[in-house]
């Protein structure tokens, strides 16, 4: 039987990992919704956000949680540049071009970072990393709980922004029907820019929080997380924030629980095997199963 304390610990770990994925997925979802563009280089924005946070923290030593908004601002500006110089010129020239452009961006950013700051892994030591919150028999790291709380705040703020403000409404209108929105006097190109800025900022937040929790940062960390974010959108449904939250948490928890369950199962059958290597493939298995059952994705016809 599995130890219940261990189980809670894994659950919190999964929640925390899920939060990072959700922040990434919601940004990707927003950009996709407004521009109908999939930015495969979205994970690179997470990577750049983490590096920005790392350097600001290393040189200033201010509270790491204050570094995150700064990184978000800088990466949002970068997002605007990417949208203006990269995606806007090729809009409407075909889906393949968007994929290829993202590939170019991935190459550019990964190697630029490797060139500037080497491929060594980086990490910071958060001032709260030794603090943990006791919950029954288990101790939960404070940073994880703070990250979960911060993500919740971001999500609520984002939801309120999209539902209650004029800008948020304009963005939703653009994602529903671009032409009609333009006819109603919405500057759709500004909405494109804004969605890219917001999406990039959320990716940077994910990167910054990832760094604070003591995880390693390297130039190639973005690719796999971007695809996990993509899987979350497909599972949770296009444009759905609650869907993304549920899918993100499920994926975060499944990634941590499934290998353990499989290991217990193998032990039961008399094998001793480790399934930790399969952690990163779970998102793909889910992605493949969902897409085989629904080849157009849960995006449906809206996607084209």
């Amino acid at each position, binding site marked *: 039987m599995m130890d219940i304390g261990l189980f809670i610990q894994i659950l919190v770990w999964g929640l925390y990992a899920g939060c990072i994925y959700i922040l990434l997925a919601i940004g990707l979802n927003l950009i996709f919704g407004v521009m109908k563009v*999939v930015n*495969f280089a979205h994970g690179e924005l997470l990577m750049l956000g983490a590096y920005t946070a790392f350097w600001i923290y290393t040189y200033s030593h201010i509270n790491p949680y204050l570094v995150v908004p700064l990184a978000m601002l800088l990466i949002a500006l970068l997002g605007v540049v990417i949208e203006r110089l*990269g995606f806007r*010129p*090729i809009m409407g*020239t075909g*889906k*393949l*071009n968007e*994929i*290829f*452009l993202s*590939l*170019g*961006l*991935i*190459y*550019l*950013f*990964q*190697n*630029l970072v*490797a*060139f500037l700051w080497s491929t060594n892994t980086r990490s910071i030591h958060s001032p709260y990393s030794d603090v943990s919150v006791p919950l029954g028999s288990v101790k939960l790291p404070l940073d994880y709980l703070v990250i979960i709380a911060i993500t919740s705040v971001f999500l609520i703020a984002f939801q309120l922004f999209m539902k209650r403000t004029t800008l948020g409404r304009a963005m939703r209108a653009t994602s529903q029907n671009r032409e009609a929105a333009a006819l109603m006097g919405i500057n759709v190109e500004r909405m494109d820019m804004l969605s890219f800025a917001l999406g990039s900022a959320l990716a940077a937040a994910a990167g910054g929080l990832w760094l604070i929790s003591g995880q390693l940062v390297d130039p*190639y960390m973005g*690719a*796999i997380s971007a*695809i996990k974010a*993509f*899987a979350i959108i*497909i599972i949770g449904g296009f444009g759905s924030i609650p869907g993304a939250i549920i899918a993100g948490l499920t994926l975060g928890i499944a990634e941590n629980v499934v290998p353990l369950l499989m290991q217990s199962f193998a032990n039961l059958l008399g094998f001793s095997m480790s399934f930790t*290597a*399969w952690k*990163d*493939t779970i*998102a*793909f*298995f889910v*992605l*493949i199963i969902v*897409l*085989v059952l629904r*080849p*157009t*994705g849960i995006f449906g016809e809206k*996607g*084209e």
Partner: protein
Amino acid sequence: MRFDRMSMRTWLGIGSLILAFLIPLILGINTYLLTVLIIMLVFIIYSSAWNLLVLSGQASLGHAAFFGIGGYVSAILARSLGLPPLATLLVGGLFAAVIGVLIGLTCIRMRAWFLAMVTFGFAVIIRTITAELSWLTGGWDGIPAKRLIPVTIPNYIVYEYYMMLLIAVAVIVVIYLIVKSKMGLALEAIRENELEAKVMGINVTKYKLMAFAISAFFAGIAGALEIHHFGYITPEVYGMDISFWPIIYCISGGLFTMEGPILGTVIITFLDAGLKSLGFTYERLILIGLILILEVIFLPRGFVSLPKRIKSTVSSRHIPR
């Protein structure tokens, strides 16, 4: 003086082929240069294979899966059965084709983005499977592979070069025949408009799967050739780089054309090798990323469209505005 476009293309092709055959004679036995050229030939095969799949509108981001499977199957067979690599690489290619059909079955109904993601995912999954089957594949340490030409033969690199050249030419001729056949037309029709293609009586599923199988077959052969050249194989062969290189080569050369992947591979390989020998590491990859971005925006038909583009800009100057 005016050249007929077709005959000029043919002459250019024959000219570069003669040049390729003469290189070891002109430049002597330069092991470094020949190694670069051998890898270039491998990637010409690989890019042409990728290009065949994208001809049907299916852009795979995980072709390293087929490249690696071809390599592993061929390496393991050559080692355990003692067969010559030239025989086992065909088996490797066939095995990759079978996996290609299986992956294709899950992919053919998907839209461009989903297909890109899912193929990428398959590469990661197959890499994990390979690394976990360590009794067969040596895990992350990899296994040694038989050399295509034994190193003990004097000037083996020259033999290897000519063998690669012959195989590459043969593969390109086969792919050319496929593209010029009814199948090539069907693939292009599917890419332009799948629904219309279906209405015209084209069996979309069949042709898309065939494109997957043939593309995977040649990618597997390319993978087997590469590892029999290097003499070892590790799961790194499934890396993102290996998936992305053919895309970069094809786009920079020119998508959907026969000469695009070849030209792109030659230009980018020389650029890459040149910058590498000057001591640049990441700078060259940054440059290649920039080239990719700029080409997608400003030259979406690749380098092969450059002469036509220049001609049209020059001639448009004579048109009074």
